[in-house]
């Protein structure tokens, strides 16, 4: 109840504008193209070719809340980008880690009462634990119940090496478990 009152008093557009005040004007306008959410998560700066990988990682097809996806937006930093807004969902650390692998420049905004409560810049970890499937069919991890483990050799473009079979994989071979 209290939340609804608050919303009425402040108005969602206004809050959004206030929060992204440092952003250039055109970015602000684009932000508004997708409807704001009152509670949930906004993932920004996703490379367009990773949009649906993020959808998969978060299993958004089976999410019951509102999901809005906008892709092919202009971005100053990464060329074209996508934004995904997920109502009523907060991300686990493991989900954030997975997003970092497909979208190394993404930012995760935690929304409460139409307000950006926290802005997390994802970080590609040095070691990726049990997130990526090894592309080598004769790797022990594809034949035995073993959590996978990869060392990050290069962050951009991503190159990782399997702890077990020592095969290295590029961005194009990466499949999320």
């Amino acid at each position, binding site marked *: 109840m209290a939340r609804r009152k608050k919303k009425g008093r402040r108005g969602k557009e206004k809050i959004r504008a206030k929060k992204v005040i440092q952003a250039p004007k055109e970015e602000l306008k684009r932000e508004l193209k997708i409807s704001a959410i009152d509670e949930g998560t906004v993932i920004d700066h996703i490379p367009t070719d990773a949009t649906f990988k993020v959808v998969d990682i978060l299993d958004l097809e089976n999410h019951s809340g509102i999901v809005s996806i906008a892709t092919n937006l202009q971005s100053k930093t990464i060329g074209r980008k996508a934004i995904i807004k997920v109502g009523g969902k907060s991300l686990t650390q493991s989900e954030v880690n997975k997003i970092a692998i497909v979208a190394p420049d993404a930012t995760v905004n935690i929304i409460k009462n139409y307000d950006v409560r926290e802005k997390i810049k994802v970080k590609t970890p040095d070691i990726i634990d049990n997130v990526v499937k090894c592309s080598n069919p*004769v*790797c022990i991890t594809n034949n035995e119940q073993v959590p996978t483990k990869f060392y990050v*050799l290069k962050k951009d473009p991503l190159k990782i090496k399997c702890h*077990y079979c*020592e095969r290295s994989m590029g961005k194009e071979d990466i499949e999320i478990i």
Partner: protein
Amino acid sequence: MEQLGGTVIGFSNANVTSIQKGESLWDTIKMTEQYADVIVIRHPLEGSARLAAEAASIPVINGGDGSNQHPTQTMLDLYTIQKTKNRLDGLHIGFVGDLKYGRTVHSLVIALSHFNPTFYFIAPDDLQIPESYTDELFQKKIKYFKTADLNRFAKELDVLYVTRIQKERFPDPLEYEKFKGIYRVDEQFLQNVKKDMKIMHPLPRVDEIDKSVDNTSHAAYFEQAANGIPVRKILLALVLGRIK
């Protein structure tokens, strides 16, 4: 121990090799370590030895994991190079044959990279050394050349490490037909090499080294094979703490 050819060999007790089908490697190791002092594992899956080492609290020796690594072979290879060349440092070393799937090559390349070598990788594109290895060499600032032509760097070599092109590594038998017999080290080739160039091979060979080479001073592969026994014995003694 290698001749036993089991998936897992409990060295102190050969009965341990009776592995039940479907049992996980992890469980096999956990069981084996109850009655073994050391585990020697040769396994077709890559990374199996590392997993075994993680499961076990006793020493694990990798006797070859798929086409990944073959470190005990590497030790005897290093020992053979040291014995025949009187040094390991600063050598020009050629590798010819299946450099993509040849795990003895992979392990030896990494080991020799500590001794300021120059490498010559001689293979057709489809069987060339994987990029992960050349990336590592690049990072370590080690000079290497890639070629498909065996004769191109013949004059430069101190050691030529020859490997068999293995049929079982090819998913498609037609692929194998394309590559078998493409390299042949024979007397004609030896006319262009340094007098003290040594030829090594992890054996068995098919036809990549002509029999006529066996009686030349270049042939080091039988000595290399013989070195396997003392080197592996010493390795076992070392991991078991019998020698220091």
